[in-house]
């Protein structure tokens, strides 16, 4: 962070401490004292209204572009790919890529995939190794998230382990071991490049009525999309949709094991699936923070924010802000103000209609089949910051039908 003058009476959060929990009482207490906190890397915004405004503020940009450099990684294939991300572009270049990608994620197109999502969820539950327990991540969340991407991109669903394995390795770039793992991460990137190169070559030979064909045509027939942008974009779509959905499904199970009455209600009323996704993402979002960076000096609520300041928007803290949501509660029938689990503004999650639709189909089916779920011994979790979720989540349940 550069230069923003901070009042030392405002709370300080050490977000680089490995034991720091972004959903802890420390954060919630800080929220009651101040709308923002000081941190190791800029400011953290803790309340709903301020998060909502700063997320879409005209004086900020998306803030993750500097992440590799913060980790001492300034060149090489990973950095080239990272800089190609639509998330890390701004202005007209961002808009051009966004306009090209949007049609793949049209809500009308996604609605047609609902029967396939339902069949997939049912198949995975039917195939659990044990009748009354499962390892939720490897037996459900992971194959579900990966096969949804395969369905979306017109890839053979049987190839889902490639998507899962290589995306998970790429995901190490978001964590504290980024630098040590770089050779492995770059190898995963090359594997995914080879994979999408084959996909592109296939669609060149055999055009289909699908999204990848449309991108291939845009790259061939117009100057709207270069060959490299096409490869980079497809790898990003595979990566971006996998980790987040897998983690969010695991977090949904965690939340519902704490609210068994709500799980029973969801089994009885599957039409609440959509609202259940919103409610889970409000109180237990996988994207624990969204990052912005000030592009010029500006004043916000008497705080002078200097150009270059990193602004972390704390999602769970905003989503449980008592000024907006009252006493802590979890109610899948409630109509609430929107959460920020999909970010917002120009960089609002491109895949949110898919994520909302696939999770809102999966959760009621799970509620029906996995009655009275409880987390068994052996669960392992990612750190409670950045992007979080279970690595392993053994669940016991009473089989339902």
């Amino acid at each position, binding site marked *: 962070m550069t230069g923003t003058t901070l009042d030392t009476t405002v709370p300080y959060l050490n977000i680089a401490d490995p034991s720091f929990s972004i959903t802890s009482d420390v954060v919630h207490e800080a929220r009651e004292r101040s709308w923002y906190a000081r941190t190791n890397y800029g400011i953290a915004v803790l309340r709903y209204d301020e998060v*909502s405004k700063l997320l*879409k*503020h*005209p004086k900020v940009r998306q803030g993750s572009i500097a992440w590799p450099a913060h980790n001492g990684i300034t060149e090489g294939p990973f950095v080239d790919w990272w800089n190609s991300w639509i998330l890390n572009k701004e202005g007209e270049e*961002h*808009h051009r890529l*966004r*306009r090209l990608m*949007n*049609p793949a994620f*049209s*809500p*009308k197109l996604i609605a047609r995939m609902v029967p396939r999502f339902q069949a997939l969820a049912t198949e995975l539950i039917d195939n659990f190794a044990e009748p009354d327990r499962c390892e939720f991540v490897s037996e459900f969340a992971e194959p579900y998230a990966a096969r949804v991407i395969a369905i979306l991109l017109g890839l053979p669903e049987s190839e889902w382990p490639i998507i899962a394995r290589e995306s998970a390795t790429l995901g190490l770039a978001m964590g504290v071991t980024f630098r040590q793992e770089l050779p492995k991460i770059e190898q995963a990137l090359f594997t995914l490049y080879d994979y999408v190169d084959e996909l592109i070559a296939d669609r060149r030979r055999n055009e289909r009525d699908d999204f990848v064909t449309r991108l291939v045509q845009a790259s061939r027939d117009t100057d709207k999309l270069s060959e490299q942008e096409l490869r980079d974009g497809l790898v990003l779509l595979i990566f971006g949709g996998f980790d987040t959905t897998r983690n969010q499904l695991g977090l949904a199970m965690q939340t519902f094991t704490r609210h068994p009455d709500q799980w029973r209600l969801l089994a009885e009323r599957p039409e609440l699936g959509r609202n259940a996704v919103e409610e889970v993402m409000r109180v237990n979002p996988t994207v624990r923070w969204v990052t912005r960076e000030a592009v010029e000096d500006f004043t916000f609520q008497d705080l002078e924010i200097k150009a270059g300041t990193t602004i972390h928007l704390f999602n769970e803290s905003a989503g449980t802000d008592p000024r907006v949501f009252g006493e802590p509660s979890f109610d899948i029938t409630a109509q609430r103000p*929107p959460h920020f689990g*999909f970010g*917002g*503004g*120009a960089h*609002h999650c491109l895949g*949110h209609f898919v994520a909302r639709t696939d999770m809102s189909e999966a959760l009621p089916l799970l509620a029906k089949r996995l009655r009275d779920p409880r987390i068994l011994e052996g669960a392992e979790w990612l750190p409670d910051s950045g992007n979080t979720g279970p690595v392993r989540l053994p669940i016991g349940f009473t089989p339902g039908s």
Partner: protein
Amino acid sequence: MKITVDMSLCQDHGQCAIAAPAVFQMNEEGKLVYEANPDDSLREEVEQAADVCPVQAIFIED
């Protein structure tokens, strides 16, 4: 053609302004402004804008 935006739903994400910049813009405060009766030649991009709106707040009336 005639457009309405349900401003009780609109969250100013600005996706419509990316999809159809001739019709939807974000002003200096980051708030949506739009042309309610755009020329019919812009129909395709307006439909894209309605489609992409994260909160589905854009309605094309005719």
